């Protein structure tokens, strides 16, 4: 019976969306630093996953597949924006102003977010996948289609820039 099988397939997809949409959206938001763009990316990602669901659902980790599509869409979009602005390297994304907490104890976090916003999308993607998605270097490399060594060097450069940003705070709080 074709139709019940089709229904079963799509029920799987509904469950997949229910269980993964929020994480995908937050990941896209952290990479793009833009809520509207993140929403568009997740929508495009899920349409792509839906149309290949018959194949994707048989994968060991459909979430990893969706995340790879999402991150590639985000980075492809960032490259497109960079080309349009004539900035081929060292992209500084246009971002909304990071929240600056007035409480002294949160100043370092605000500096950190500010510095994150100034990273290239690829550097930010590495840090987001490693420290928000909790992926290993090898898993991050798989998502980005590069070697673990490249992930390591990108993460290292990104962390170095964050350290510089925190160093500019006169008296960072001990907690940070």
């Amino acid at each position: 019976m074709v139709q019940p099988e089709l229904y079963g397939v799509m029920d799987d997809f509904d469950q997949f969306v229910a269980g993964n949409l929020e994480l995908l959206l937050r990941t896209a938001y952290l990479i793009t630093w833009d809520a509207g763009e993140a929403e568009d990316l997740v929508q495009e990602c899920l349409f792509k996953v839906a149309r290949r669901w018959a194949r994707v659902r048989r994968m060991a980790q459909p979430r990893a597949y969706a995340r790879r599509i999402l991150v590639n869409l985000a980075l492809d979009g960032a490259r497109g924006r960079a080309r349009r602005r004539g900035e081929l390297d060292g992209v500084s994304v246009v971002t909304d102003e990071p929240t600056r907490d007035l409480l002294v104890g949160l100043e370092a976090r605000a500096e950190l977010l500010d510095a994150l916003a100034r990273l290239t999308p690829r550097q930010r993607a590495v840090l987001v996948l490693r420290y928000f998605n909790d992926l290993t270097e090898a898993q991050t490399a798989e998502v980005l289609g590069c070697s673990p060594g490249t992930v390591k060097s990108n993460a290292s450069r990104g962390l170095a820039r964050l350290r510089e940003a925190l160093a500019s705070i006169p008296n960072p709080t001990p907690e940070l």
Partner: protein
Amino acid sequence: MPDQLERSLRDALSHRATQLDPDSITRLRAIDYHARRRRLRKLPAIGALGATGVAAAVAAIVALGSSAAPAFAGWQPTPTTPAPGQLAQAVQACGQDLGSPVLTDSRGPYTASIYADSTTSDVCLSGNGVSMSSSSTSPAPASVVAGKIQLNGGGTRDAAGNALTLVDGRAGAGVTAVTIERSDGSSVQATVADGWYLAWWPGAAVATTAEITTASGTSTVAFPSTPALPAPACPSGSHCASGYSFGSSRGGSSGAGPASQSTMSVHRSSGSSSQ
């Protein structure tokens, strides 16, 4: 052991993530990413053709931006030579993970490709700000009888009246050309390659017959009747479905192949994005 900076980074990222507008999640949850698949249950074609043991159906999802360009400007009824970079753009639009296409059809700025493996087959169409995909949950037949073609396809339309129609499938050994005659009296030349064929056109004219050319001459086969789908309820700016769908015979293939179903989705970008 994570150092202090890594801990701070995790904290900052988590904090930033919570600043997302909850409405974003609500909006994304409200989208039906596969609405038209369920509509397949209502298609008369499935029951009627399913009795033969071989059935295919196509449904559609259409999403058009408010500033969409005139529908399919530059489309050609005869396949054209792709412009430099056109095929690479098509691969990028369709997703490189699909592998290599078994057939690529270019018509002006548009590229349509068939991707197939042992379990599924997909058609992806892109160019000029439009992208469309049709995904089959069952494989195409491994082959059809020499000199014959598999008859399969469907169409879609959006709220603004933009429509496209597509036919595709396996072509038997010896088939060198396929010309699709349409319900409006005009014809479209299909691309034939490596045992596959594909043709598509703007508009809702349906395929009526296929003229198949082999070394020994030409033959004509009639497409199955094309039941119209119910009139679409397609609010402006929303995803919607319409068009028609028809099931297939295997064009004289030996034995009944597995039943199959497909979905088609179309997206027209509202700007000059990467579509």
